């Protein structure tokens, strides 16, 4: 299931009518072109969820993508808590089409690489997205990081690491960070066993309302036809 927030916006309203920063648009197009080579893929991986109120194991997953924007994550066994916004990291869909202004955010350094910051501002007033910031590595035409600020659901952040599938613009690791609401069960409802132990010392560094999902991906099978049923 895809959360119809900023994703939809990107899907529907991409347009390259930016007034400023011609070179940034060129860069963006280059990134887009690279991603366009991938019509579909299937990949295996693991997903680790780091949320204070979810004590869940690392799960084995399978990821599927099909142009223009279909993404599906499935766990190979057991129960899974799949982050709804995670489908956003499908960069193909972000850049496939759109109606936004492109602003040059200047140059910066990220993980000791020189990168270019590109800001995308939606033109549509009713868009749920306020702003998307992309951190692009210019010489490789890949996106290292994106921050999307929404009107209602806080900020979504993607950090990507590339290795084996760099030419396809497909990351080996994605760290997806977002805001969550407080989780609270009414006390007493569960008759819990109070073992008198102190709270666990290793409180997640992220705090209560931050969630982080780390996905490691391997074995991409690119441009092999994928049945439609998978995305249902």
């Amino acid at each position, binding site marked *: *299931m895809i959360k119809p927030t900023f994703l939809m916006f990107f899907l529907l309203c991409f347009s390259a009518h930016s007034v400023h920063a011609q070179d940034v648009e060129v860069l963006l197009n280059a990134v887009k072109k690279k991603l366009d080579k991938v019509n579909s893929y299937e990949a295996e991986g693991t997903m*680790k*969820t*780091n*949320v*204070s*109120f*979810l*004590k*869940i*194991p*690392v799960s084995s997953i399978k990821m599927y993508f099909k142009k223009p924007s279909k993404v599906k994550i499935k766990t190979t066994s*057991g*129960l*899974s*808590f*799949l*982050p*709804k*916004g995670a489908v956003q990291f499908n960069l193909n869909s972000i850049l496939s089409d759109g109606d936004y202004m492109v602003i040059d955010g200047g140059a910066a350094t990220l993980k000791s690489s020189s990168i270019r910051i590109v800001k995308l501002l939606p033109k549509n007033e009713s868009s749920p997205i306020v702003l998307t910031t992309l951190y692009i590595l210019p010489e490789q035409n890949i996106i290292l990081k994106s921050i999307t600020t929404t009107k209602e659901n806080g900020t979504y952040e993607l950090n990507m690491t590339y290795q084996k599938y760099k030419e396809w613009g497909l990351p080996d690791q994605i760290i997806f960070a*977002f805001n*969550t*609401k*407080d*989780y*609270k*069960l*009414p*006390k*007493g*409802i*569960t*008759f*819990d*066993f*109070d*073992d*008198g*132990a102190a*709270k*666990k010392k*290793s409180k*997640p560094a992220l705090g209560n309302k931050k*969630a982080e999902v780390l996905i490691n991906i391997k074995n991409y099978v690119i441009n092999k036809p994928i049945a439609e049923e998978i995305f249902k």
Partner: protein
Amino acid sequence: MINLLGLELYKIARRPRTYIAFVAVAAIVLVFQLAFLADGESYMSLMLQNVKDNFDMESSKAINGYFMCYIILNTLLVQVPILVALIAGDAISGEANMGTLRLMLTKPISRLNIIAVKFTAAFIFTLVLLFWMAIVALLFSIFLFGADDMLIFRVRSEESFIMQIAKDDVMWRYFAAFAYAAVALTVISSLAILLSVFSDNSIGPIVTTVCIVIFFTIISNLNVPVIDKNIKPFLFTSYLVGWKGFFYINTSEEGQPIKQSLENWPAIRNSLLVLLTHIVVFFSLAVYFFRKKDILS
């Protein structure tokens, strides 16, 4: 002694009241299972609340046999003490009421033996009842709902969270939990037997046991800090839910559950020791008073 135990079990087996417990357990479990078959999703939605805003979760997979059994035990283990008291509270007093205690004590059997046999019979009854619960609440739930990873919804101090236990890591926890429950319920039965020493009718000790359990449980769950600190540790009912400790899986620094682990084994062990101490004390008192008791019935 073995012979006497056989007789005692024979008596329990011949009494219609014994089967109330089994029917009651099956009925409660069945109601739960039917309710969850019909509308388990809304329960799961309630428990998952706003988690659903950020995460996709297949509720139908979460409502599986393991989860069902946990939910059922949660409720059932509050009521089962009543069923155990029903049998154990009758142990001495029921015989006194019928007049058979008098007859039995004119036979060459020591009073210690009689208490020991009654106690063992009640323990065996408890084991059989728990075995029955394992069949209907666990195995039958697995049959109805399948087996998958298990979710534990938990509140600790001010913190609420969800723990996930891999399905291949669940079964031993249930074995341990049922074993713990056997010890916990034996506290109830030894209390009921102790009370039944003083009475010549079975209603008194049964009702008193149930009242004590209910009263203590209410106090144990008041969540008033003063009581939590000063009174709760001294109530045996606070330790009855210790079986849950076997489902509190330890987590890594980053919050991932560690298979085959327990979050706080020392706490479970201490609770077990507290319960065992209660059993020893109740049993000894029962023996002491029964040996001094004049049989006037």
